[in-house]
């Protein structure tokens, strides 16, 4: 297997559908401890990228990822724009280098994307943000790929890591993002950014299991 642009396009469409399906959850989480714009921003990004299939299809995977990054940067705004854009830029750079020709290559690219995102947002694990999902998923992806697990096993591992990471945000005090002013009042709520990342990652795993990528 290797990462194909056609899979990237299919993932974009699947993510768009999944974000809409999870609207009530994402929206109510952000309203509880955020400022209520996270769903709209993520939807705007997902919708835009899902609508770019014709533009993306002829490109190499790394070019497609870069194009997605630039488009997200100019459409999402807020904190999500630069963060998601940095993720895709980091991923594109690594895919260009390693070709994304096996699961370990893709795992390395995912991790590089997360690393760029960390640099941009100056965040770390345990701050009640999307990193509480992304960092454990990046670790798990590499661990599972390096053990030469099957696609099915890798997907199960990744989904479990995403679920666990999301759940870990419930009892955290937010120290980043707009919930940071809340102190103890944020305890008991999941983070909306972590939730939307978990939804996207789960969706891409589901899609992968149904396809040959």
């Amino acid at each position, binding site marked *: 297997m290797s990462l194909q642009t056609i899979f990237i396009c299919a993932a974009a469409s699947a993510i768009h559908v999944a974000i809409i399906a999870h609207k009530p959850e994402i929206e109510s989480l952000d309203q509880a401890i955020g400022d209520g714009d996270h769903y709209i921003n993520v939807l705007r990004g997902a919708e835009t990228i899902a609508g770019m299939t014709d533009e993306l299809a002829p490109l190499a995977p790394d070019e497609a990822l870069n194009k997605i990054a630039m488009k997200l940067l100019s459409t999402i705004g807020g904190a999500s724009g630069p963060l998601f854009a940095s993720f895709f830029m980091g991923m594109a750079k690594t895919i260009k280098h390693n070709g994304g020709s096996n699961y370990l290559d893709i795992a390395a690219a995912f991790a590089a994307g997360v690393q760029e995102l960390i640099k941009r947002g100056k965040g770390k694990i345990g701050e009640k943000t999307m990193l509480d999902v992304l960092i454990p998923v990046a670790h798990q992806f590499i661990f599972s790929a390096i053990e030469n697990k099957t696609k099915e096993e890798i997907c199960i591992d990744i989904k479990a890591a995403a679920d666990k990471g999301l759940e870990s945000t419930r009892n955290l005090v937010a120290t980043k993002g*707009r919930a940071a002013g809340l102190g103890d009042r944020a305890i008991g709520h999941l983070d909306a950014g972590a939730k939307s990342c978990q939804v996207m990652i789960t969706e891409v795993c589901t899609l992968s299991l149904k396809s040959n990528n």
Partner: protein
Amino acid sequence: MKKFTNNVNHMLTESLGGFEKAHQDLVSLQLEPTFITRKHKASNKVAIISGGGAGHEPLHAGFVGAGMLDAACPGQVFTSPTPDQMLAAAEAVHADKGILFIVKNYAGDVMNFEMAAEMLPYQLATVLTSDDCAVINSTYTEGRRGVAGTVIVEKCVGSIAETGADLATCKALGDKINAQTASIGVALTSCTVPAAGHPTFEISESEIEMGVGIHGEPGRKRESMREADVIVKDMVDAILTDLKPTRGSEILLLVNGLGATPLMELYLIYNTAEKLLTQNGMTIARSLVGNYTTAIDMAGASITVCILDDEIKHHWDSPVHTAALRWGV
């Protein structure tokens, strides 16, 4: 939700269209990417650019004009603008003396302006405003939020830039004012983001949110509604605890409406705040009352105190000709 809309997705563009037409002697609007500039480009000065999510009007577009901003980049409602807007605005207003970004301290605004700064080939500096003393600065927070004190920074930095001051001097004045300014807000009701269609947070008739942010972010604590003098005293106390002004200080007192509180109540707040600050030994040398940094349709108000010196007073008093602030012209 009951608002004047045609299609929520077009609200910002339609509103900016009206803004440009109503102030066509002062501003020009560009779309895709969206930014507002002065009608007539200024030369031989540091270009002052600000921006932020829509919903805080007149911030920032209302402050574009002679004596204040060169350009403003509005984002979607409560959402930071994007780097392509700042790049286009910078190209349009750059006048060979560098560019100063004035950015309210929110993760999104900071990151988008930072990415634009990395892409621009010009001499560039940023003033981050963080006057909201409701958020205690500690290792557990992202730092204080920028709220209504931003207006004072934009006015005075805009003024010093008109004198031909260099980039470092403009930034230094902005940083100084930010350090000498503290604000705190209180919400009586929530606000409603048009695209969401329902209030951002729940609050009962008998409650207030002390320390609310300009996006309806919760603040210090949920309290019971009391008479105005008691609420204003808590706000003034929070500001004095934070700023620790020496007795005899001259200050600028800004009472800002958050969108749905009438001037009658804002002046009532001013009346009490003025009395309390005077009792604490302050001299209120300058004042401003009105809706300058709003949170869409939130009922509520913020109080801002800026400790003055001769330099700040001079730049506050200098002529300004914008849609929302106009004096000396």
